[in-house]
């Protein structure tokens, strides 16, 4: 399997985002096992250190837990945490970027709430 990684973000981050995406989309559910580091490394042709680093961040954020000798599992509280994190990230990172774009495009901020309820219809 080949993946097109972008060159803006370190690959381990992109891999982590991929796992987060799977969690948010419900492809991985609380209690599910994550594929082993070896499997992911082989599948995506990545150095195992890269995969480990992505997994380690997930462990640090308590979205994934290591069960000794068995592997990595999505934690029960992961989805709630993840949604909270994602909301925070949206407010702190994505929203300011969006706001910047709105300014650059010269859009009238006052008009936007109206667009939201009409689903962006013109």
């Amino acid at each position, binding site marked *: 399997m080949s993946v097109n990684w*972008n*060159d803006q*973000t370190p*690959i381990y981050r992109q891999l982590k985002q991929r796992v987060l995406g799977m969690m948010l989309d419900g492809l991985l559910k609380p209690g599910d096992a994550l594929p082993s580091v070896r499997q992911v*490394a*082989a599948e995506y*042709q990545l150095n195992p*250190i*890269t995969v480990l680093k992505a997994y380690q961040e997930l462990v640090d954020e308590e979205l994934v837990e290591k069960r000794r000798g068995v592997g990595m599992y999505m934690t029960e509280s992961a989805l709630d945490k993840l949604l909270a994190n994602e909301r925070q990230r949206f407010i702190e990172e994505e929203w300011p970027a969006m706001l910047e774009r709105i300014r650059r495009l010269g859009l009238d901020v006052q008009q936007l709430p109206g667009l939201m309820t009409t689903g962006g219809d013109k």
Partner: protein
Amino acid sequence: MISVTDTVTSSVISARSISKQYGKQRVLDDVSFEIAPGRIVGLIGPNGLGKTTTLKAILGLGNFDGEMQVLGLDPRTQRDALMNEVCFIADVAILPRWIKVKQALDFVAGVHPKFNRAKAEKYLANTKLSPDMKVKSMSKGMVVQLHLALIMAIDAKLLVLDEPTLGLDILYRKQFYQNLLEDYFDENKTIIITTHQVEEVEHILSDVIFIDDGKIVLETSMEQMAERFVEVLVAPENMEKALALQPMDQRAVFGKVVMLFDGVAQEMLANIGETRIPGVVDLFVASMKGVAK
């Protein structure tokens, strides 16, 4: 002195001031490097400028000046002992055309004490290869599979691959590295790869060593590399600012200028344009220019 002994025992390879001359031509000039266990190291450089000579020195194939320890052994004087722990593949075209699968197994079983025949046979059972098949009647993909079966069944601590996928279709090249990661590599093993297909291996590498003109131009882990080097797509209005930060290289892409910086803070660079992580190839090209200046 203590720290020196420490590095010697914890390194898989410790090379100090290695030099090699063919006649009047100096192919390795005072080269030193350390390789730790559990790493996948890419040895990258133009042809004929030190790569193969370095591999030969590691394998004890030929003499050189300087000090070299591979798995704690001197490859020049302890080559037999060293070969028990090392597996070396030049390129996959090296198997004789007349040899049968079972003869290849017999041969490796005879020459390599760490060869696990049952493991090789188990691997082969998942392929279309049969014991009586000859290399000359195999497709290239099958030859790779035979090769892989032989490598994976050798419990070697160090695997040296010199252009391992030369002449293979892209499909089999991928399969080669995929199997290597899945069935062979673990944190106690070390792989050294030289290849021209840098893009193909760059994500599986943990370290790169750039060699040019007999010298090491850059030796870095991929993690450090990503922290240290940044490529910036410089916006035209920021050209002066960007040049003041002393880029190590610059090139024009679609009318925009891409500059490569070494050790400049990310935040500073984000102000002058879109930043990204440089590819190994671009970094190598820039490093070579760096030596020339």
